[in-house]
């Protein structure tokens, strides 16, 4: 802005200077003319308070009045223009004044240096800085790229943190939303859903909740019109939607009547399902959808952004009331707190409700002892807090990690800027001698740094935007709210913030060197100095040491993660997951109402699968180890005391077909496995795992021992252990394996119908993926309407279970490699520069008989010295910081000497490599030429 845009231009739209008014005498005016409405107020806000501001207001008003006497409209135009010009300057000075050391439109101000208005000067500075950066394209490119790496990676990870952790949930007043769950530490259960019958008591008796709703995953196969399809579905109370305060996109959500027992079946479908299956047809309401063979009338379509629970596309009413509600603790529940209520209050209220429920049970009944022995307690937690609790720590660690990369990048750029300042010392000194104040030199240097940072920030933002989809595709699917991750206003603000921070970090360095002493020193030396100022060189070496330290911390962190990963990888899971293929089916209850039919279906499919060439073994179960959470229930165990005051024995259980242990590759340790015949005739044979046998019958022969299920005396039946199989790491390597009871496919005790309706098939054989088509046809030949889902190899299932660890490891690893490279580049830069600076010294050494090797050793030794300082600092830092990784590590301590030592050696090796090139150049110095050259 060379000229103020508001300044009068060549052709004026107002009357020229009127001789009358110009003379300065005051017309007597009727004071009917006031400045345009609002403009004076605007001006008043912009101007400093006090007589300066007021006198300016007075000047303008007076002049306006005078002009208005001739032409009111022109006077108004004049006022607006002039007011704008004054206001812009006043505001501009307010904003820029302090920073640029400009005088302000106030009585007190500092000294300026030229007559240019401040905006013009800023522009000049920027242009000057841009020109000087353009003259050094290599420097500019390296600096901008380094900054872009740092800022870009930090921005990308922050987008993740922002979307997942910081943004509120996408529901109205989401802060009031909580989850209601249970804990029963007495039985070893930390956090599990509540039961539907508890829900009715909770909802009715706790005023701290404005509303409460539950849901539960349910298998749902859609048939009829089009291909059979398995969709993620839940049964839900009608209050689920009112609690979340979300209405339907089309139609409506459930009415209370539709949620009553015996009400005709209805369904609400998700946007995706609506688009996919109905082509977004507006007439979809009232149409029927066959779910598990039963017709449901569609009453509503949810909006595209509604996804609760995650990935669910179909909601059907639970049709419970307080009387018929399920007693199973499998109903995740959300609540909306009443105005002013806190989660703690709500939890206290629910505890008193539980006390009432307890009283209602008969003394000694299993439901009462569940509360007593289990020390059952309700838990109320913020919904968002709970959703993100599992990923919170790894995400913050990642952000910290990339923060380190940003720091290293800034250190690198600080080094570059220092080199540049060094090179330009004489230029600066000359400028200072010619009258440039230190202020202007500082300003110039700062403007250049700011320009670099802004370029780096913009490039970084672009990098982050490019990298984000790739990061998201690698992110663990358990990471909630991934669809909310993107570059939004908060992210932009953050990027701007870290860009500003980076200016402080690398822009401050050269300023310290701009002291007047240093400037005049440079002139006196006349450029004939042999090395850079010793202080300068030391500062740069320190920066490199700091870089090495930061890089080492990241390297140790990622080294620990790699070791954990390795430990997990080589831990024996207890079964052989190679050459396995699994898939799931869900058998609709409507078409297979009888448990015997379900069993018959599985047996038919198993027979067909086993007949396929290429399939060596096949089995079916309802719980897939590693992938599924096993249900558990109280058992009575032979030889274990039971009754009053005795702890409830809670054991995991599942149903398996014959051939399960063989197919999974689980060793049979004693007795025999379950046979095909056990699925019939109410066999009372079971298998147990080694963990169970050694826990209850140590040193005894477990075969033939008995277990009672359910634990209750009246209902329970005794089962006989037919065989013992090896213990499988059911819940992945991080959890200690639990005792497991294997029932046959259909067992009199383990409600065969419910447990086998959702089943997982396991096949063993080489290259089973190639048989996918044949496998489908085998299943379809038994039932043409049966969808197959979740086809996965054993390796994939195991990899999925540690995806959070591997995501953290890969990200940390990339950060560490970036840190190592940036650190090496930094060291290389410093040594190269020092070699250039010390040519004369080196030449003297060589002229006096030093060998090339000695010279090289000297330079490499310098690099090693600097790096060693960094390594010492870095080891200390890693010792302090890797503790935060503790929860993610497996089989390795945060203070692992091998990792620490290995990484330190690696860093030193890379440093020596980085020093080698400059050293070789130093050794190739020709003494004669080098000394003549000066």
């Amino acid at each position, binding site marked *: 802005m060379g000229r103020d845009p508001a*300044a009068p231009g060549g052709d004026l739209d107002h009357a020229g200077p009127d001789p009358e008014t110009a003379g300065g005498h005051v017309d007597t005016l009727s004071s009917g003319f006031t400045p345009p409405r609002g403009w004076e107020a605007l001006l008043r806000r912009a101007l400093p308070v006090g007589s300066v501001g007021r006198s300016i207001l007075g000047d303008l008003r007076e002049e306006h009045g005078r002009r208005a006497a001739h032409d009111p409209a022109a006077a108004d135009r004049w006022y607006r223009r002039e*007011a704008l010009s004054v206001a812009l300057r006043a505001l501009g000075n307010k904003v820029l004044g302090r920073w640029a050391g400009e005088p302000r439109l106030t009585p007190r101000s500092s000294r300026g*240096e030229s007559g240019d208005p401040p905006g013009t000067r800023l522009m000049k500075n920027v242009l000057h800085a841009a020109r000087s950066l353009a003259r050094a394209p290599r420097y500019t490119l390296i600096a901008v790229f380094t900054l872009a790496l740092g800022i870009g990676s930090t921005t990308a990870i922050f987008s993740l943190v922002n979307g997942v952790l910081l943004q509120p949930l996408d529901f109205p007043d989401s802060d009031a939303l909580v989850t209601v769950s249970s804990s029963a530490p007495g039985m070893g259960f930390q956090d599990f859903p509540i039961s539907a019958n508890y829900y009715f008591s909770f909802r009715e008796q706790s005023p701290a909740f404005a509303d409460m709703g539950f849901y539960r995953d349910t298998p749902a196969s859609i048939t009829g019109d089009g291909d059979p399809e398995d969709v993620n579905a839940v049964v839900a109370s009608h209050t689920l939607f009112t609690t979340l305060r979300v209405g339907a996109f089309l139609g409506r959500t459930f009415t209370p009547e539709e949620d009553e027992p015996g009400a005709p079946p209805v369904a609400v479908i998700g946007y995706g399902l609506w688009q996919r299956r109905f082509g977004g047809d507006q007439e979809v309401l009232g149409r029927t959808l066959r779910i598990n063979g039963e017709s449901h009338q569609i009453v509503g379509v949810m909006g595209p952004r509604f996804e609760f629970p995650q990935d669910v596309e179909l909601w059907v009413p639970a049709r419970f009331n307080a009387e018929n509600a399920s007693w199973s603790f499998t109903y995740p529940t959300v609540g909306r707190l009443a105005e002013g209520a806190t989660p703690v209050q709500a939890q206290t209220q629910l505890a008193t409700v539980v006390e009432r429920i307890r009283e209602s049970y008969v003394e000694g009944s299993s439901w009462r002892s569940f509360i007593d022995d289990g020390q059952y307690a309700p838990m109320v937690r913020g919904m968002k807090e709970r959703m993100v609790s599992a990923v919170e720590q790894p995400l913050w660690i990642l952000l910290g990690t990339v923060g380190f990369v940003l720091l290293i990048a800034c250190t690198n750029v600080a080094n570059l800027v220092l080199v540049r300042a060094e090179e330009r010392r004489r230029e600066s000194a000359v400028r200072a001698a010619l009258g440039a104040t230190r202020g202007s030199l500082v300003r110039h240097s700062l403007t250049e740094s700011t320009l670099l940072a802004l370029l780096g920030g913009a490039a970084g933002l672009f990098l982050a935007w490019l990298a984000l989809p790739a990061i998201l595709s690698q992110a663990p699917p358990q990471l909630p709210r991934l669809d909310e991750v993107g570059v939004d206003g908060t992210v932009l603000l953050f990027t701007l913030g870290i860009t500003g921070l980076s200016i402080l970090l690398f822009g401050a360095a050269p300023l310290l060197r701009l002291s007047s002493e240093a400037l005049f020193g440079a002139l006196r030396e006349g450029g004939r100095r042999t090395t850079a100022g010793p202080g300068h060189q030391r500062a740069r070496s320190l920066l490199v040491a700091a870089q090495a330290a930061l890089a080492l911390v990241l390297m140790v962190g990622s080294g620990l993660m790699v070791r954990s990963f390795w430990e997990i990888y080589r831990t024996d899971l207890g079964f052989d997951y190679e050459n396995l293929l699994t898939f799931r089916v869900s058998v609709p209850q409507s078409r297979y109402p009888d448990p015997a039919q379900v069993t018959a279906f599985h047996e038919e499919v198993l027979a067909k699968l086993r007949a396929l060439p290429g399939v060596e073994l096949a089995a079916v179960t309802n719980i897939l180890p590693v992938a599924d959470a096993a249900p558990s229930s109280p058992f009575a165990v032979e030889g274990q005391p039971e009754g009053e005051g005795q702890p409830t024995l809670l054991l995991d259980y599942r149903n398996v077909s014959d051939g399960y242990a063989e197919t999974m590759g689980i060793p049979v340790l004693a007795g025999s496995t379950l046979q095909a015949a056990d699925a019939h005739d109410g066999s009372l044979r079971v298998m147990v795992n080694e963990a169970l046998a050694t826990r209850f019958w140590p040193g005894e022969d477990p075969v033939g021992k008995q277990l009672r299920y359910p634990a209750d005396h009246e209902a329970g039946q005794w089962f006989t252990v037919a065989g013992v199989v090896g213990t499988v790491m059911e819940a992945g390597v991080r959890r200690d394996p639990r005792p497991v009871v294997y029932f046959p496919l259909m067992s009199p005790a383990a409600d065969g119908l419910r447990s086998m309706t959702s089943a997982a098939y396991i096949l063993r054989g080489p290259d089973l993926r190639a048989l996918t088509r044949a496998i489908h046809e085998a299943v379809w030949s038994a039932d043409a309407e049966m969808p197959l889902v979740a086809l996965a190899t054993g390796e994939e299932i195991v990899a999925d279970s540690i995806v959070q660890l591997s995501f953290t490891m890969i990200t940390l690893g990339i950060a560490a490699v970036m840190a190592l490279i940036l650190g090496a580049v930094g060291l290389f830069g410093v040594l190269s520069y020092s070699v250039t600076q010390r040519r004369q010294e080196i030449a003297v050494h060589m002229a006096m008989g030093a060998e090339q090797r000695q010279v090289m050793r000297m330079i490499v030794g310098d690099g090693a010295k600097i790096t060693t300082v960094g390594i010492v600092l870095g080891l200390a830092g890693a010792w302090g910081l890797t503790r935060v990784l503790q929860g993610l590590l497996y089989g390795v301590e945060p203070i692992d000497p091998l990792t620490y030592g290995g990484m330190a050696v690696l860093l030193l090796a890379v440093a020596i490599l980085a020093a080698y090139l400059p050293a070789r150049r130093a050794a190739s110095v020709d003494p004669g030429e080098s000394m003549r050259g000066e």
Partner: protein
Amino acid sequence: MKRQAALGEFEQLVLLAVLQLEDEATGTAISTQLEEKAARRVSRGALYSALDRLESKGYLTWKVEGSTPERGGHPSRLFSLTEPGLEALREQQRALRNLTEGLDEILDPGA
């Protein structure tokens, strides 16, 4: 070494205008002076910030005068030169005279 702050061309004109106006150097009057005598149309924003700058350099000072109804109750400022301001102006004029000596024919062909 304490250097005297430089005087820009526009600042010089403002100082001269203030001198010309003697006791009547209000913002409006200075603006009018500049327009009439130096053919300089200048925005109020530029003018007030120049006045500010000159004040902070110690070349100008001002006192507050009472208000009139036409001014909406606002006071006015009367500017005057300080001794250093006068000295800076003289210095500038001397330099100008020294440098223009013997160049009359070129610089002022009409005379």
